Structure formats: C-alpha cells, structure tokens
C-alpha cells in the first residue's frame, strides 16, 4: 500500500492547530512514514501552483484549519475541496468560526478603523489603509480582499469531517490521522474525535442544586476546585459544549469557554447557554433577576466565544451589516 497523500492548510487562525500536530512529538516520524505531506505551508515546502496542477481528488485528505476571513482563504478552501477526497474542518476556527469570528460582532469598517487609525501607537495622519491594489514606483502590489464577515469552512465548501477544539486534543488528532491512513473514517458530516454528550456530563466536580444569587468575577474570587463552577456563580460553558477535551480548563481550575462547540442535539450553542445560565438564577423577583443578569457582562462574547459565525445570531448581524 502506498503512502496516503495529505495536505494541511492554515487560513485565518493562529497556527496552534499546526503546532498540535507537532505535539505528536516522536510519533511525527510515524506520520512521515505513512503519509506524504504534499502541501503544508507552515512546515513543508510545496507551492500553491503544485496544488493547482494536481488532478481533482488527488489528495486523500486535507486538514483545513482557520476561519475564512479573506478572498485568499476562500480560494484555498475551494482549491483544497476540489483536490481532496476528504476535507476535514480541523479545529474550532474551521469548525465554527472560532476566536477570529468574534470580529462578526462589529463591521469590517470598524475593525479597520480601530487597527489603522484609533490604536494609540498608530501614526497615520493621512488615514492610509492597506488596499487590494497599490501602485508603488517599481510596480503594482496586491493584497487579498477582506470579507465583510468571518465564515466557518462549511459556509464556503462541503466539509466531510469536523475535528473540534482550540486546538484539538493531540490523542484525537492522532486517532483521526490513523483513521485516514487506514481508510476507516466515519460517514461524511461526522464530528470526529469527540463524544456527543455535554462536558458537564463527564465533569468530575461535585454537582448539587444550582441556585445562585450572584455571578462572580474571577478578578476577585478563587473558585473551589472540587465544586461545579456554575454552582459557585462562575459562568461555565460546560452545559452546551461537547465533551472530548478531557476537561483541561477545569483541571486548571478555570471554567469552560466552549471551544469544542455544541453537541449534536444543540442547534445554537450560545442560545442554549443563555437558557442554562438563566435557569440557575435563584429569584422570582423581576428587579432582582435584572440585577443578577446584569452581572453577566458579556453574554455574546462569552456564550458564542468560539461559534459566532455559525450561530443564528451571526446571521442577524450579517443582514444588518449588508
């Protein structure tokens, strides 16, 4: 049996997914033995031109990480889709939009204004902005065009498998690579390397009745490491987050922020979290409820921390922006 042909590409992301593959450590040599890495700009040498010249479906699998932020990301998504038998949305950004997707809370114009004008160290009296096409004395220079909104990978192309996590747990990506090499992938559309229950259901912290009168700020509070965060009034995204990460944040005594995305039976992670959080408030008095809810200072940025581009809410934002 020949080696399987693989590609890995980073779009709008941080490179942490690529690094997570390196964190296979000595096992990376086994990967090199079983797979031919035909395109992986972060670590290997190979050009987009090579990729374009391959026949369609030449690659056995492409692992795509990062969200779709600009025209180049979209082009690469379409190209890799065309050249691959299996396309994997690898990590939170490709899966759900991820942290870069928080940009969808604001317009692109605002984002550019803040970065290139408002930031205090910026010296830009002419209000210059990077432009798609710029003529400077020796010749023209081109940049990709930024989209108005950040998109998850499956909003641009069909995705066969999803590997959640920011970044995915190393053992799960190892299992994914083995499944690719052994042609044992589940049917298209599956979320691989994670279970289908909520993180809460496997959390080892003690759980009693959740009735709370106040939400706590971690700046002035140390949570008990043995007790459910929500019971202590600390917002935790465990109720609407797929398990599979091994509860790594909880073990560092910090609450979940939802990077594995929702389990199958939850359509919208943020909406589900909103209802979970509302249900633990211990009051029937509307004024008191109002005061307690006020303590949830950033519901959109907390409940949709990793999933805004794939949420219902993002659709609403997009309509407003267009």
């Amino acid at each position: 049996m020949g080696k399987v042909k693989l590609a890995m590409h980073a779009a709008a992301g941080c490179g942490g997914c690529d690094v997570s593959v390196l964190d296979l450590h000595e096992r990376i040599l086994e990967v090199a033995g079983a797979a031919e890495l035909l395109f992986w700009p972060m670590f290997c040498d190979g050009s987009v031109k090579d990729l374009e010249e391959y026949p369609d479906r030449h690659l056995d699998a492409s692992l795509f990480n990062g969200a779709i932020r600009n025209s180049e990301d979209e082009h690469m998504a379409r190209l890799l889709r065309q050249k691959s038998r299996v396309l994997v949305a690898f990590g939170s950004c490709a899966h759900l939009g991820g942290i870069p997707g928080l940009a969808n809370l604001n317009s692109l114009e605002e984002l550019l204004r803040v970065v290139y004008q408002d930031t205090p160290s910026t010296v830009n009296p002419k209000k210059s902005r990077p432009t798609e096409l710029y003529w400077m004395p020796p010749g023209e220079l081109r940049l990709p065009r930024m989209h108005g909104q950040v998109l998850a990978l499956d909003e641009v192309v069909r995705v066969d498998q999803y590997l959640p996590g920011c970044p995915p747990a190393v053992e799960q990506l190892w299992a994914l690579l083995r499944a690719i090499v052994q042609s044992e992938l589940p049917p298209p559309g599956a979320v691989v390397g994670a279970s289908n229950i909520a993180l809460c259901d496997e959390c080892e912290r003690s759980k009693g009745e959740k009735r709370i009168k106040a939400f706590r700020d971690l700046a002035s509070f140390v949570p008990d490491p043995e007790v459910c965060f929500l019971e202590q009034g600390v917002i935790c995204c465990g109720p609407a987050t797929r398990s599979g990460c091994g509860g790594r944040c909880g073990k560092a005594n910090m609450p979940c922020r939802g990077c594995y995305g929702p389990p199958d039976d939850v359509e919208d992670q943020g909406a589900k979290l909103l209802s979970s959080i509302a249900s633990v408030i211990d009051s029937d008095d509307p004024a008191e409820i109002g005061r307690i809810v006020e303590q949830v200072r950033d519901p959109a940025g907390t409940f949709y921390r990793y999933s805004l581009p794939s949420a219902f809410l993002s659709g609403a934002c997009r309509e407003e922006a267009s």
Partner: protein
Amino acid sequence: MTRITIDPITRLEGHGKIELFLDGAGEVADAVLQIPELRGFERFCMGRPVTELARIVPKICGVCPGAHHLAAAKAIDAVYQVEPPPAAKKLRELFYCAHVFHSHIAHFYVLAAPDFVLGPAADPSRRNILGVIAKVGRDLGGSVLRHRRIGQDIQALLAGHQTDLVWCVPGGVSKGISEKQRLGVVELARSCVEFAKTTVGVFDRLVLSNEQYVDLILSGPYALCAHSMGLVDSRNQLSLDEGQVRVVDTRAQEIARFAPQDYLEHIGERVEPWTYLKFPFLKLKGWSGLRDGQDSGVYRAGPLARINAADGVSTPLAQVERERFFATLGGRPVHATLAQHWARVIELLFVAERMLELASDPEVASPEIRRLSRQIPREGVGVVEAPRGMLMHHYVTDEKGLVVKVNLIVGTTHNHAPICMSIAKAARGVIGRDKPMTDGALNMIEMAFRAYDPCFSCATHNLPGRAPIEVLVRERDGTLIAREAP
C-alpha cells in the same frame, strides 16, 4: 523593470510574500515583503471582560501563545493594580522559560539548522530536519525532539495545556504545583541545561568552526545597522518577563530606558497601504522610511537586539557564552543579522539555567499563588520578551472591567522594517547581472528573514519537500517571462 515574486514563502505561520524588482541591468532595485493577513484582535477584544483577554489573546499565535498569555497577565495585573505573590511570579517565570526553551529549540534545529548544517545551497529535498538528523546523528535528533517535548510538558503541567492557556488570573495563577511535581521539574530542567550546553557545542562545531560561515555571518549583505531594543532588569541584565525597556543605538549607547506603561512616548507605528502589517519606529528619531543607520528610527527586537541592549546575562554559563559572542564578532553591538542564531542559542542556555534555578526554589510549590484585587479596574500595559521580540499589550477598561481599548505591538511587528531591509540587502548581494538565479541564491534571501524567526513564519518543522519558493519573473506590465519552479 522585471519582477520576481516569491509566493508563498513556505515554512511560515500565517502568510507572507516577497516581491523583488530588478532594474534594466538585472540588479535588484527594490524588495518588498507583504503580509496579506489581518484578524483585528484590537477591535474584537473590545467589549470583553478584561479577565477573559488572558484566554483570548493566546489565540493570536499558536506558536507563541505563552508570550501573549503572560503579556496579558501582566497588563491585567496592572488594570487591577494587584501584584502577584512571590510564588506566583516565580511560577509564571518558570512557565515562561519553558516556553522560550521549546520555541528556541524548534527555531534553531528545525528551521535554521538546515541552512548551516547542510549548507545554504544543499539539495532542497535534503535541506530539512531529516537531513539535519542524518548529518548530526540520530542520538542528537532524538534529543532535540525529546527536549522540545520537555518544554511543552512543563508548560502543560503548570498551565493546564501547552497551547490552550487559561492559567494566569489577576494577581496570580489559577493553580500551583505540588512538591513532588516541583522535584520532577528540577530533574527535567537539569536535562535541559545539559541539552543547551550540547547545543552550544553543536553551534561551535557546525557553524563557528567553518570559516566560510563566519565570513557569511559577517558579510555586508547580512548586516543591518539598526538600534536595539530589549527588556532589562534593574542591573541592565537580560530579562524576558520583568523590568524596563532599554534601547541602545547603533553604537551601543543607551538612548532610551522606560517603564512599559510609557511605551507610547517612545514608539509610533506607521501604516503603509501595501501591507496589512504596520511599521513601528522610535519617536526620538522619527520615521524616515526603510533605511538603517544612526539617524533612522528603525530598531530591531529579538535575541540579537536583546543581547546588544543588555549589559550582561545573570546566569553563569550564558554569561560566558555572551562574552565569547562579542569577542568573536568584533564587539558590542553586533549588527550581523545571521548572528541572531547564536544569540538564540545563548538564550536557550539562559532559560535552561533559569528553569533549574527557579524549580530548585521550594517556594514555587507554595500554595500562596493568588492575591485578590479590590480595586476598580482601569488601565494597564504588559510587556514581555516573546521568543522573537518584544511584545506589548495595552488594555483600558471601564469601571466594570469591560475592555474599551486594546493596543498590541508584537515581536515580529517591531522587526517588520528590519526584516524588509534585510531581505532587500541579501537580495542585492546574491542576485544580479552576473549571478545566476539558483535555488541556493533564493534560499540565501530567505535566510535573511528566517534569522528573525518571524512569527508569520514560526516554522518549526520541515519534512522532505521541494524548494521553498517559486520565482516568477515578470515584465513591468505583469507579463510572465520566466518561471523558476523547483
């Protein structure tokens, strides 16, 4: 006028493109590095609770999340006007030394070593880590992978995960370590010191003993006469996570020394319409374009700048190596871009020695890891030395702790102008009318930016493949006249 496009530059984190313009005589007229990406953290961190930023900003870079996590932690401490207890500070420093340790290993062995161990013009299919292992031997190769792993493992032990960092909270950290875990780290750190010493020997044997390489390091195309910026402690010794920012000029004279919160008085950032990345400069000198020299506002950050800016290194083995560095390369400051590799090796030794010192201190196993703040949150600046250069985070909040303003200047951004100029200088040195455009020549241009370990090219691994770059030679109107594909 003809144009050469190097696109994509591979083995990079993020995206980058180099454009070279040749004049009628075939000499390099100009070289431009473009960064085609922007995610805009400065905007979407606004509105978030500032305590959450320590969890959000590590996602700026998955290669150096530790640097962003710690810079955020320090900025947030300042926002809440709270000082972590000694054990928490030591734990944070231990964590950070482990971070720099594995980052420097990855850069030196995986990214830089192929150019030196195998040679700049070696067969591209061998010019990678596997080629390096074949030449230096499997024992050393295995040790490289093992010690990168140790760095990641110490980070994960302390912070919960090696990449998804959630550990630093205002006034300390979210969990400590046990005495047993501390003793385990002592053993790992001992091994790290030995490995760093081995690395010094490797650099000696493979680079410094080779006259051609020393000549290359000291040659004109790889020199850049810029000021140097680095973090120093109260005795002006090298520091990676505490202290003041010091700038020395092209003659190693101090021209600025300031506390992190005063950075805006000293640094400005220029916007250019042809790249998404800004150009920082020293306000003292002003921005006068992409040029080096004593009157330019362009400065460098990163290992070479740090060793130039500091008067010494506090750990014994690294200090000896620092002396040898300046003695060999003609005294302080060193302007040789490729000397960054040696400076990085010296820092590898420094952080390994520091890890051992810190882990040997029983206080790091203390349960006193948090001080709570009762202050109204306001504004804070956090500065650390990321592996590849100074990292500045600046947050302003409302009275509820929601972020209203964020400013970030990252290591590679500080080096943006120097990287552009180093590329152009190397290009002029290796490409021209009488110099054939070979793969080796193009790789020698890439060596100029690789020396900076730029974060958009935080490449840490390189499996067998083809030449890293594709070259398109175009007429001025864009017509393709030649293609040099590997």
